[in-house]
């Protein structure tokens, strides 16, 4: 396939793909890889800095298995594997906060992994929804033209111009109360995805429009092919490239959108973490100045977005056609 060939030629893109795969795998396995459940509070260690790991104890002996010092300062706790059903951890009352703890004493590293589930998967799922919607509507508009085309394009403009922030605040207000964290998450995906169908639709429409006029399609029409056959056999394959490229552009945008929405209080509720709502606690002045490890969700997003960017560049070097 052309796409696989394109990627093979660019080692950076391959690297990005591998990185993304590993990250998504790690995030999916958060229940195993994270040393603590995301809601577990350690109220006696709020805002603890990242736990220092020692290979040499106070007396200077070397331990092949690293250890941490307990809260009293003298007791050591070795890091053990496969403890409490998780990959690694320490026995109570020792704590292993690889990236420190937040205001309630919850492990930031664990919450980062679990939070990645929400943020990354929101990006994927919302992109899927947008692309699906955009694909259907764009193909219909491009293929049938006429009033359908005009209607879709005009309502597309309306969507682009809507103050989505204000609308989302309004929607949150009158939702029923008994929404679990999962349902809030799904709602978030639906909203983000539904708002963003316009650009993919426009691109697909463009491709379908030009594809419609191609000689082989006209020939097939002349031979009496039905609309369904034309679409399935000739037009849709043309759109595959566009859809895939748009995916690499939309997913990072939606990850950022989730971060922004959660930042504003419209995302998944406590205690479920997402990179967005973890950042909103970090945004306060006192946190930045005194507890800089709280910024890690923001920093974690950067390599992810970078990887998607590299992929997008590899698939479509000419970025002009990404922003119609």
């Amino acid at each position, binding site marked *: 396939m052309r796409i696989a060939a394109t990627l093979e030629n660019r080692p950076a893109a391959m690297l990005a793909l591998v990185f993304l795969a590993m990250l998504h795998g790690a995030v999916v396995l958060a229940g195993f890889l994270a040393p603590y459940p995301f*809601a577990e*509070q350690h*109220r006696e260690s*709020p805002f603890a800095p990242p736990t220092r790991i020692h290979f040499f104890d106070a007396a200077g002996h070397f331990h092949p298995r690293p250890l941490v010092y307990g809260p009293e300062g003298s007791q050591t706790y070795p890091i053990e594997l496969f403890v409490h059903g998780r990959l690694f951890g320490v026995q109570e009352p020792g704590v292993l906060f690889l990236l420190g703890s937040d*205001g*309630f*004493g919850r492990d930031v590293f664990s919450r980062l992994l679990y939070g990645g589930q929400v943020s990354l998967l929101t990006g994927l799922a919302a992109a899927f929804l947008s692309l699906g919607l955009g694909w259907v509507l764009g193909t219909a508009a491009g293929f049938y033209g006429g009033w359908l085309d005009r209607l879709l394009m005009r309502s597309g403009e309306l969507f682009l111009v809507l103050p989505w922030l204000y609308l989302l*605040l309004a929607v*949150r*207000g*009158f939702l*029923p*109360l*008994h*929404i*679990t*964290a999962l349902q809030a998450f799904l709602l978030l995906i639906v909203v983000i995805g539904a708002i963003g169908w316009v650009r993919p639709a426009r691109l697909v429409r463009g491709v379908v429009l030009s594809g419609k006029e191609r000689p082989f399609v006209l020939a097939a029409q002349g031979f009496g092919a039905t609309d369904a056959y034309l679409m399935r056999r000739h037009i849709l394959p043309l759109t595959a490239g566009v859809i895939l490229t748009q995916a690499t552009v939309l997913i990072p945008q939606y990850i950022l959108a989730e971060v922004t929405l959660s930042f504003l*209080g419209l995302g998944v*509720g*406590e*205690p479920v973490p997402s990179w967005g709502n973890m950042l909103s*606690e970090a*945004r*306060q*002045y*006192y*946190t930045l*100045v*005194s507890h800089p490890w709280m910024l890690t969700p923001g920093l974690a997003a950067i390599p992810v977005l970078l990887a998607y960017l590299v992929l997008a560049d590899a698939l479509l070097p000419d970025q002009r056609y990404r922003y119609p």
Partner: protein
Amino acid sequence: MFLLCQGIWAADDVLVVPGLNGHPGGRLVYATRIEARTLNPVTAADAASREVIDRMSADLIHINRSSYRTEPALAKSWTVSPDGLRYVLELRHGLRFSDGHPCDADDVVFTYQVHLDEKVHSSERDLLTLNGKPIVVRKLDAWHVAFALPSPDAVAERLFDGIWILPRHLLEKAWHEGKLSEAWGLRTPPEAIAGLGPFRLKEHVPGQRIVLERNPYYWKSDPAGHHLPYLEELDFVVAGNEDLQVLRFESGESDVISRPSARNFGVLEKQSEQKGYILKNVGAGFEYNFLFFNLNDLPANAPVEIAVHQSWFRRTGFRQAVSAAIDRESLARLVYMGYATPLSAPVPPGNRLWLDASLPRLVRNPTRARELLTAEGFRWSSDGALTDSQGRKVEFSVLASASNPERTQTATLIQSDLQQLGMRVDLVPLDTRSLLDRVQRTHLYDTCVLSLASSDADPNVEMNVWLSSGGSHLWHPEQAHPATPWEGEIDDLMRRQIVARKSGERKRLYDRVQEILMQYLPLVPLVSPNVLAGAKKELGNFRPALLDHYTLWNVEELYWTAGARK
């Protein structure tokens, strides 16, 4: 009984404040979170506007924010009739508004007419209406005004605080035309605004700052004869949000900070030495946080879940169990960095005079909580989840204001505490207005974390909260008849304490109210945050108080010690 209260006055009826020794000059910069919206004393409802307006206005009798006692302000003395129904106030002679225009009894009568006017919808109107009948205000002569109360009120003097006297020569025309609420918006030129406060409007830059300048006609002075205020200018700078407010204070751009959050206070404390400011933890204030339950009669179209949840909330044992499970110490420590006091009653600890000291401290007791739940028929399933007598899992939601991080943090801690009892609590952060709409209008909620702040030490200001017919009776407002016997008892006690003459008897009645509230727990008291404030160390007479306005209540007395602000 003849009650006479006199202020010390000098030659032309100026109030001399004893003990002051500052010197004039300088500008004070005060960073606010959001911009004031109007300068109209009658319609202003938001705190930002009131902050500015209160510095430009004066009332007849003022409550000293530090001693909580009433003091003569524009009224230099007053007499009370033996039955407590008639007050006659004498104004200071020679008073002038900030534009030089004289002030006399006509302005006082005008002010009260405006506030009592039904078409104006002033917030003070309900305060001035006792038992459904308004206070009647009559001018006796140029300097004497008579106030006739429809029914006795033990602390009627306190009613005068905060009712700013308005200039008839500037506002009467607007009032007659029915346009009073549009008067004195932000775009009004300074010449069109006048008041009797220590400052007057100098300049307004939209979105950025409101600058006040010294009122040359202010009626207070210090013992050395300097006319107050000491400061030449008071500059309200709009910072935008709390973090920017803290940043400005820390960088020295602003001189005072009022009620930073506990965490920001902690950060500021670390640098106070090198940056040259002092921070004060004034102590437990008048604000109290609590969790309350939806005990309303639900409308017919309410979702079934809420009715099911209410069947749990209505059990006193359930509410007591929730209260017993909450870890208030951690709340004070984690959310407020220790700058808060766990509550033992819904009366803030700052209110030492009225708090029932005999009530026991609330200590976290999960064992007791489980006993209470078992007694009410709840059971635990094998996976630890709490179920009621019909096998339904105990799950409900708690509302918290999304814009206030401390509320959502409080709710998160409560969520975790109750989880240990097997309850699943969903935290629903909503913006303030949606939250209030649910709590007060539609009644479609389960529980809510909220806080109230008393504006005065006296329990009378909270009548609307404790009376079952009150609009602020949060868990079940505006009842036609008391829904429960204990609410009826509270109604009776509150009504009796309003007319009781002796403060000892009033305290006894109010203590009983607190006992009932703590037994039936319609709201579960949590903590009371301390009042925190800070100012540059060269600011003299900086004495933050526990009541609004925490730092500027004595703005006319603030001054710069030698070698300070330009």
